[in-house]
Each structure stands twice: as structure tokens, then as C-alpha cells.
């Protein structure tokens, strides 16, 4: 066990050195690192609990996506039947299906063929699944059911999350923060991590709005009060002004003249006459054409600017607006105008986002945690090192060198993985120091036993290593199982603990099997001991 060929010893030392070298980039500043090649830039990232910042977990409202998908299917059915001039009654959404009853005397087969054309094959990752977006069936009474299939809905949710991530990215980037992290989590969630952000209130406001902007006509066929008491016309709906404007009701047509998707730019500014904050916007060419046409046809009538189902303002069209640009005023504060411009530029979310988890750490606590973590690590390591020296003397020194290499390797591996260091992660490293020496303790106690059993020095060393290594492997694998499980269930700081703890176990086994043995062998060759100082 104690004999190493020259190449083997070299290989061990080189491996240890190589792994340790990965920790080097951590000692340089970001600016210095950026001049290096990319492969050398990998380094430890401080977790949000150490550097301060905000972590938000957002959930895409999948029910809204589902509902929208079904309503879209219903509108498609209506369009198809109208175009084909097929009479129908009772077009409704029921559960996961759209139901429509064909009138007596219509060509049912023709209707069915037309409706079947709505169903499209789903092109997913596995393109030849044969799944289609709709299951169309008809019973004897002429009731057609178009079931929106679950894969179609899931596909739509997936697309919505993808779109949402892009839009969230644009909105967060507008805040001018450093290195925000935006990631999908699970099927319908988005993680947003913004280092250094102290108060996420504004971020939450930006993310909490769908920012669906529509330009629609105000329905003047009856007054809003009449509509509240009676029933609004089928093609209109009642919408209200925002609370700060007194929740005034408006009767607005459902038909959208131009939507926010046609905006190319939006900037905050001030009205030249009233010097009130406004948002000025510009349409793209198709939006400009649609807007020009709508305003030409409706001079003298009011139209409404609707944001997230609230009527921001309802000005009267004085003259056709042909230039494709305009402005929105609505008693904004400067900041609100600013935010609205950001939202309009970034685009509307396909579905509302809900904040389901928030964790924010201020920079003060982060800095405290770093300092406390450092002090605890130094003190803990020193105590262990002194204790090992007192208990095993020279072999304690070997153990300490091994532990030092071990810790350097942990940092190397963590850097190579671009891992996140959290406060529990630091605790994991300190704990690893305590546990790493266990492998040495196992070996040394075994050596002591073998010496007592009457073995000669070299023989005892050899037997000690030989017998202890199996035990070391067994104990570390069981601990590693626990660390691995923790990695899979944990998030954030806890996962940081699992990572350092797990990596620590691997490096511990490595150092016990190689470094400690190598050092012991080197010492034995140097001193040719007649007696083992253990």
C-alpha cells in the first residue's frame, strides 16, 4: 500500500495541483478575469444570501392560458362556420371542449369536414406522435364537440412560459441591474434572481403587470349606467378606470382597433402644454395603417386606451392620426410613466405571472454573513488542526496537509462547476474539515492497533492503510447518498450546502486514498523509521 511508482506519484500530485488551480480565478477581480480566455474564467459565485439581492419565483397562470386557448378555439369555430355559411346555435366552452349545435337541415358532413380542418398535427420534440390539437366528434343530434387535447394545451403553456421569460428578461434588464438570472423552473415557473437588489417592490410591480395594451372604441349605444343596470350589448363590455382615477365605468367595444403588439417604441415624456408626465409611442407600419384608418372613420367619437382591462384614458378623436405615433396621458407620476414605457417596450405577457416565493437579503446581512462565515471557518479549521497535531504529532501534520489540499480542491471543483457559495455552503466546508480528518483518524487508529498487535513499523503502516481504506469508502458513500438526496430536493442556500458537502466527500476520499498515503510513504522513505511516532 505504501509503495508508489514514480509516475503514479506524479499523476496524483498533478491531479491535486490541477484541481487546486481551478480555484485561482477566485483571487482575481472580475475586471482582471474578463481579460482571460473563457475556460479560465470559471469561478465561485456568491449566493444571494451572501452578496445580497432578490430572488423571486414566478408562476405562469396556466389556467389563464388554458382559458385563452379554449376561447381561441371557440372563435375559430365561429369564424369557420360563418365563412362556410353553416347555421349553428349554442356555441360555448364547456370543460376542455368547445360545443356547438348545428342547425337542422345543414350539411353536417360538410360542417364536420370544415371543423376538422381546424385540428392541426402537433409538432413537438417527438414529431410523429400522431397527436392533433383537437378531437372533433359529433353525435346524432348534431352536437359537435371539439375537445382541445391536453398535449395542445401543454404546448401552449410551454410557449407562454418561453415568451414570458423573454419579456421578463427585457423588463428586468430595463432596471439596469447587474447580471440578473432568469431561468425556467419546472413546467410553468420562472426564477428571477437579481443580485444587489435591496427593495424588489418596483421589480415586482414591473413583473406583476401583464401590460396588455389595446386601443378600442367606446360604445355609445347606451350609457355605462344603463349597461350596469341592464345587460351590456353582446359586442361590448364594461371596463373601469384605475382606482386612483375614481373607477369610472366605461362601455367599451370588444373589437380591438390596434393592440400593443404593434408598438415599436414607447418613451416617457412630458406634455408640452400641461407639462404632465405622458408616454409617447410609435406604431409599426401595419399598426400605423390600422390606426389611421380607424381614426379616419371615427372622427368625433371617443376611443379608449385599455391597459390590463383598465381604461387609462378615453380621448375624443379630433382628427385622423396618420403619422403612426401618439401619446398616452392618464394622470401619471413620472415614475409610473417611466414604468409604463418600459412595459410597453418589453411587450405584453401572454398570461399573468404570480409571485409565489420571494427571498430578499439586504447587503448588510450579506456582508455580515460573509464575515461570520469566514471567522467561523478560520477558527474551526484552526481548532481541528491544533487538535490533530496534539493527538497524532507528525501524522497530525500529514493529516493537516491533506486537509489543506482537500479544501483547496473543494474550492477548485466548486469553481470549475461555477457553483454558488452560500452561508450553509460555508458551513458545509467547515463540516467537511471536521469530517475529512476522520479518514485520517481511521487510518491512524488502525495503525496504532497494528503496532500494539506487534507489527513492525512499515508493516503496521501498510496494514493500517489497507484495512482502513475499505471502511473509509463505506462511510463516505453512505454520507454521500444523503448529500445527493439533499441536492435534488434542496433549493438556494440548502442546495449550496449539498454541493459543498458532496464535493467535500469526494475530495476527502481522494485525499485519503492518495495524498495521505503518498505523504506517509515519502516520510517513511526519508526517515526509514524504526518506530512510528503515532
Amino acid at each position, binding site marked *: 500500500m505504501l509503495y508508489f511508482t514514480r509516475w503514479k506519484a506524479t499523476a496524483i500530485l498533478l491531479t491535486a495541483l490541477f484541481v487546486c488551480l481551478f480555484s485561482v480565478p477566485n483571487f482575481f477581480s472580475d475586471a482582471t478575469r474578463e481579460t482571460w480566455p473563457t475556460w479560465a474564467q470559471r469561478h465561485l459565485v456568491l449566493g444571494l444570501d451572501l452578496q445580497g439581492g432578490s430572488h423571486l419565483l414566478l408562476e405562469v397562470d396556466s389556467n389563464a392560458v388554458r382559458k385563452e386557448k379554449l376561447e381561441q378555439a371557440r372563435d375559430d369555430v365561429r369564424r369557420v362556420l360563418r365563412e362556410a355559411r353553416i347555421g349553428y346555435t349554442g356555441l360555448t366552452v364547456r370543460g376542455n371542449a368547445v360545443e356547438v349545435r348545428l342547425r337542422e337541415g345543414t350539411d353536417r358532413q360538410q360542417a364536420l369536414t370544415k371543423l376538422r380542418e381546424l385540428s392541426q398535427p402537433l409538432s413537438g420534440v417527438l414529431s410523429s406522435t400522431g397527436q392533433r390539437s383537437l378531437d372533433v366528434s359529433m353525435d346524432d343530434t348534431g352536437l359537435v364537440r371539439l375537445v382541445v387535447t391536453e398535449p395542445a394545451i401543454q404546448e401552449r403553456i410551454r410557449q407562454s412560459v418561453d415568451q414570458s421569460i423573454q419579456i421578463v428578461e427585457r423588463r428586468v434588464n430595463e432596471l439596469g441591474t447587474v447580471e440578473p438570472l432568469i431561468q425556467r423552473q419546472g413546467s410553468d415557473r420562472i426564477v428571477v434572481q437579481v443580485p444587489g437588489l435591496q427593495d424588489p417592490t418596483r421589480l415586482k410591480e414591473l413583473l406583476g403587470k401583464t401590460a396588455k395594451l389595446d386601443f378600442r372604441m367606446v360604445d355609445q349605444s347606451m350609457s355605462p349606467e344603463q349597461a350596469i343596470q341592464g345587460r351590456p350589448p353582446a359586442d361590448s363590455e364594461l371596463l373601469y378606470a384605475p382606482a386612483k382615477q375614481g373607477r369610472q365605468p366605461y362601455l367599451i367595444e370588444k373589437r380591438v382597433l390596434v393592440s400593443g403588439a404593434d408598438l415599436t417604441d414607447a418613451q416617457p415624456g412630458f406634455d408640452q402644454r400641461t407639462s404632465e408626465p405622458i408616454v409617447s409611442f410609435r406604431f409599426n407600419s401595419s399598426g400605423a395603417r390600422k390606426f389611421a384608418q380607424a381614426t379616419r372613420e371615427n372622427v368625433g367619437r371617443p376611443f379608449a386606451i385599455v391597459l390590463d382591462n383598465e381604461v387609462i384614458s378615453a380621448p375624443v378623436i379630433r382628427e385622423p392620426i396618420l403619422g403612426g405615433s401618439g401619446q398616452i396621458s392618464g394622470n401619471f407620476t413620472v415614475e409610473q410613466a417611466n414604468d409604463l414605457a418600459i412595459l410597453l417596450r418589453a411587450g405584453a405577457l401572454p398570461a399573468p405571472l404570480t409571485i409565489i416565493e420571494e427571498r430578499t437579503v439586504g447587503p448588510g446581512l450579506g456582508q455580515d454573513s460573509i464575515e461570520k462565515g469566514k*471567522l467561523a471557518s478560520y477558527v474551526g479549521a484552526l481548532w481541528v488542526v491544533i487538535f490533530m497535531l496534539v493527538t497524532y504529532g507528525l501524522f497530525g*501534520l500529514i493529516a493537516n496537509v491533506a486537509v489543506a489540499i482537500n479544501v483547496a480542491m473543494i474550492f477548485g471543483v466548486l469553481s470549475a462547476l461555477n457553483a454558488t457559495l452560500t452561508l450553509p455552503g460555508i458551513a458545509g466546508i*467547515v463540516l467537511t474539515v471536521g469530517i475529512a480528518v476522520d479518514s485520517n483518524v481511521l487510518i491512524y487508529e488502525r495503525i496504532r492497533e497494528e503496532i500494539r498487535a506487534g507489527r513492525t513499523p512499515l*508493516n503496521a503502516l501498510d496494514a493500517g492503510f489497507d484495512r482502513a481504506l475499505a471502511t473509509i469508502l463505506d462511510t463516505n458513500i453512505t454520507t454521500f447518498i*444523503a448529500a445527493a438526496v439533499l441536492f435534488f*430536493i434542496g433549493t438556494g442556500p440548502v442546495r449550496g450546502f449539498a454541493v459543498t458537502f458532496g464535493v467535500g466527500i469526494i475530495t476527502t476520499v481522494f485525499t485519503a486514498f492518495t495524498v495521505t498515503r503518498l505523504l506517509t510513504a515519502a516520510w517513511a522513505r526519508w526517515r526509514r523509521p524504526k518506530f512510528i511516532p503515532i
Partner: protein
Amino acid sequence: MSSWILIGLLGLVAVWSVVVLFWERIPHLHIVPPDTKFDFIRFRRISFPISAVLTIAAITLYFTHGLNFGIDFRGGTLIEVQSKSGPADISGMRTTLGTLNLTEFQLQQFGSPTEVLIRIAQQPGGEEGQQAAVQRVRGALGDSVEYRRVEVVGPRVSTELLSYGLIGIFVAIFGILIYLWFRFEWQFALGASIANAHDLVLTIGFMSVAQIDFDLTSIAALLTILGYSLNDTVVIYDRIRELLRRYKRMPFTDLLNASINSTLSRSIVTHLTVTLALLSLLMFGGQAIHSFTATMMFGVVLVGTYTSIFIASPLLIYLGVGEARGHAGKDDPDETEGGRNALKIAALEEQLQASKTEPAPAGDVGGNTPASASTASAPTPAPASASPGKSGKGKGGGKGGKGGGKGRR
């Protein structure tokens, strides 16, 4: 100041290191006297009832006191604030928050007198309700405090986290059980698992008494305790297995005692080093990981050691590990200490000096060291003398283990 102490200690370590490198006869600390022969196994008559009582007490506590579920699992809001002007006025803050129409909240000094921890129970109104509550608190406390930490966990996330945590613990126990079953015998796996469950139950009882917040980091602490307590148990089990192979006729209780006594020094030294590491975290690591380290300290240091010595090992008697012994073979003289005569050691010495790139030949009976392999003596293949009919229990284990031992090398 503290950095000077650290540098001083570091210097001391450096000097000491040089001293031990050149002056080898420096006396060492032997925490456990070399020939300790303490009858641990007899203590099972005390330790088993004690553990039973403690386990029942822990379970009772869990149901009467309950666990102090943190927001990770119960949902709600946690806000850590630091007063910007002197010690925090907790009662004033309580009055302020009282006007906010929150369903349930607690204030507590946290660490230094300027810091206050505000816990707000889950508010009605689903996910948005929690956010609204934070908004109200921020509005009410305004700029008089610094917000050091704000954590809001909605109802959906908290339910998920709890189920993940529980699943995690069961998966870990199960995974370890399977591993031990492969490496040892099922009796060992079962014994370790019972010991493990015992550890976890007692730790949960401790958390209930100390009213430590039970959150995601507690699950981390529990899993670490699990892994670590097992670590200890496995060391003793490893030795039991080794002695089972070596001494065929030693009474099982003696064998257990021998195993525990011979690993006792290691157990204590390792626990001291872990204790030192944890103690440093507990003293200097700050409030944020205080409950984490306190839980671990209890689980690893107090319960873990006790369990592996007084519970896990004696349990093997009842699980029937030693039953097929005593008449199934005889002590293997080659492996006993008396059998290690000078001749063999000399042979090994020679072998050591020569090239030792190859371990024991593959044809060797795996449990033996290279030393005995080179001098392969006649009585060595003891397992062969076992009656085939009985090899199902203890003996079979020996063989299986040997197979594993060979594979390792």
C-alpha cells in the same frame, strides 16, 4: 484584534509542525487508553429502555408541543429588520403592526438588540395576499429600519417544499438501506436503519423542545445527521464484520464489545474534531445558521455517537447475526494476534521493500491481508469448514463480505 489571535495561533501551528517533523518522540494525546475493555453491550439493558422512553417522549412532544414549522413549510412571511437608531423598540413595532389587520404575527429580538425578526403567518388571499401583507409592513415601518432579509413563501411553494423534504428523508434512508444491504447483510442494514430512525426521532424531539424553526435548513441538518450517524455505525459494523470472519468461536457479545472498544478511540477523536468544527460555527457563524448548527450539534454529537455504540451494535444480537456461530468453525489462527509470528512479519517486510505494485493474488481468500496471502497457511480457508446447510445466516454474510473485499482492492 481577533485576526491577531488567529495569526498568532497560525504561527504556533507552524512552529509545532516543524517540531513534530524533526522531533518524533514528542508525546501524544491518547484520549482513550490503549487497552480499554468496557462492557458496552451489557449496557443495552439500560440503553434500550432509555432509548425507548426517549423515543416515546420525543413522539409525544411532537404531538403535544408540535414542531415550530418555519415559513418554508407553513407559508407566510419572515422579515428581519435592523433599527437605524439604537436598540429596536419592539413593543412600538408591535403596536404599529397591530393596526395592519394581519391575521397573526410575532416579533422577536434576533441576535443583537437592534435586530428584530418579524414572522407573519400565512395571510388569506392566496399568493397575492402574502405580497400585499409585506407591502403593508414595509409601508408601516417605512425608513426607520433597514430590511436585512425578507422572505415570502406562498401556500403552493410551502406545500411542495414540505413534501419534497419528507420524500427526501425517506429516499435517503431507503438508499442507504439498499447500499448497506449490498455491502453487509440485511441484518446490518436493518439495524442501521432502526438506529437512524431513532436518531431522527430524537432530533425532532429536541427541535420540538428547543422550539427551533423547522425549515428547509432543518431538513438539511437532518439529512446530514443521517449520513453522519451512519458513518459512525458503519465504522463499528465494518469492524464487527471483520472480527466475525476472524474469530469464529468468540461469543457474540464479546465480539461486539471488542469491536466497539477497538474503534472507540476513533469514534471519540472524530467526534471531537466534528464538535470543534460545529462549535466554531455555532459560536461565530451568526444567527442565520444558528438553528442549523444547533440541530446538527445535538444530532451528530450527542445522539449519533450514543446510537451507534449503544443501539446499533447491540441490536445485531436481536437481529440474529451471531446465531449460527460458535460451533460452525474455529478461530482462524492465521488472523489472530498470536498467530502473527516474527517469521511472517519478516516475510512481509521483505515484500514491502520489494515492488508492491500488485495487491493480493486474485485466487486468495479475500478477507486476508497480503501478508497472510504470501504465507498462506493451511487452516486459512475456514469458511469451507462450515456446514453448507447453515450457511444462510452469519456465514453467508462472511462470504458475501469477502467478495466485496476482494472487489475493492
